[in-house]
């Protein structure tokens, strides 16, 4: 029996980066999704958008070359690439809402079988809510890909029939890159594209809260 080797976060970031098309405009959510920018294959042109009005975002600067006037959505110092541009907030979200972004990569608490996304609030009322740009991005981008562990730390499925956490958007997620599998999502359900080494379809299904279909490459 093959050894089970879940995809690490780095593996997932590399896979997402590999799947980004040449010439795409892409927004990366705060946290793990930001790792994706480290793995864009050589020669592929990708423009990163940051919701606070930066198109053509580059990597974090060298410590002695920080421009404190350039920050990303997580308020970290970044750089701007040649050909980048700066816009105000209404324009930045107009391009999000208007469907001009080819892709947004986000984290998730839960994704439903038809692509509902819950990623902005838990049901813990002691924590003040904060939505930021998550709802605009999930509703507006052409594609919404989620990077996530397949289950919670206590083993509960994160891919569920119906989200129990507050929704970010309805029917928004088009692909999930989880620690166990890469899964396409549409209004009709979830289709497995690829599984981590050593994972069987039955094991994957057992850790998933919604029925999965076998895709052509996941038999």
């Amino acid at each position, binding site marked *: 029996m093959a050894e089970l080797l879940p995809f690490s976060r780095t593996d997932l970031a590399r896979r997402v980066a590999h799947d980004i098309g040449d010439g795409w405009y892409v927004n990366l959510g705060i946290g793990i999704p930001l790792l994706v920018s480290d793995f864009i294959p050589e020669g592929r042109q990708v423009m990163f958008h*940051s*919701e*606070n*009005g*930066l198109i053509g975002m580059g990597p974090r600067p060298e*410590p002695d070359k*920080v*421009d*404190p*006037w*350039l*920050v990303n959505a*997580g*308020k*970290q*110092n970044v750089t*701007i690439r040649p050909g980048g541009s*700066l*816009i*105000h*907030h*209404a324009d*930045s*979200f*107009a391009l*999000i*809402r208007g469907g001009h972004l080819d892709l947004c990569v986000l984290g998730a608490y839960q994704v439903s079988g038809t692509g*509902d996304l819950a990623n902005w609030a838990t049901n813990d009322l*002691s*924590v*003040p*809510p*904060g*939505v*930021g*740009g*998550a*709802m*605009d991005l999930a*509703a*507006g981008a052409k594609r919404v890909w989620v990077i996530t562990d397949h289950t919670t730390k206590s083993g509960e499925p994160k891919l569920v029939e119906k989200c129990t956490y*507050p*929704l*970010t*958007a*309805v029917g928004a997620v088009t692909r999930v890159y989880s620690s166990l599998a890469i899964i396409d999502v549409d209004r009709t359900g979830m289709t497995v594209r690829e599984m981590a080494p050593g994972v069987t379809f039955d094991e994957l299904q057992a850790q998933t809260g919604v029925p999965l279909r076998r895709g052509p490459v996941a038999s």
Partner: protein
Amino acid sequence: MQTDGPGADSAGAVNDGRECETLTNKIVNSVAEALSGIDDGASVMIAGFGLVGQPDALINGLIERGVGDLTLIMNNAGMVAGVGASLLLELGRVRKIICSFPRAEGNKVFGELYSRGRIELELVPQGTLAERIRAAGAGIGGFYTPTAAGTMLAEGKEVRVLNGVPQVLELPLHADVALLQAWRADPLGNLTYRGTGRNFNPIMATAARLSIVETCHLAGIGELDPEMIVTPGIYIDRIVHVAEPRLSAGGN
């Protein structure tokens, strides 16, 4: 000659460039003067995303002015405890905040006020916040957006299916005052920004009855390239020169 109301008596009478210059010099000498007339109960837009593009001197001036019962409209709810907007909250000057992301790493000020019911929160998705501000400045009565449809932030709002997509009716967001930060300003109030310091500044400039800008640098009339001016002076009422802030490097 009037100098206090922007263009008060000037309609049709001003063709001479020099006279125009005098009529429309909006530069004031101090932060206190820039903030004169702001009273208790005011609704105040504060630009900035994180610490960048945030008018720190004007916020500190508002604290010194002592006004309270304020409604703040901004993206965050103060980044660093003990200073700026966070201090306004700590001092109990804010009745309500309209924002997208009130949490800040390491800053519990908002969270404690919120959990004790001491501050009202209207949480708005960031793009909807920006568009509501833009709509106010542009005289739009409301708009439908797919953002937040089917979520708890659409509860109680009108939803229509347009082009097959459920969309939420959102109304414009006006304010009494906008506090802004520019990189360069001329006496007419034409503004340029630096880096991601642009953020909410250009739209908040349009949406308040009184728009006040602190600028890092002053320029003469004609010095700013008209092709590069982001905010035209028509939106700006008062300008105060404040030296460039030392923004901390390293983020968060």
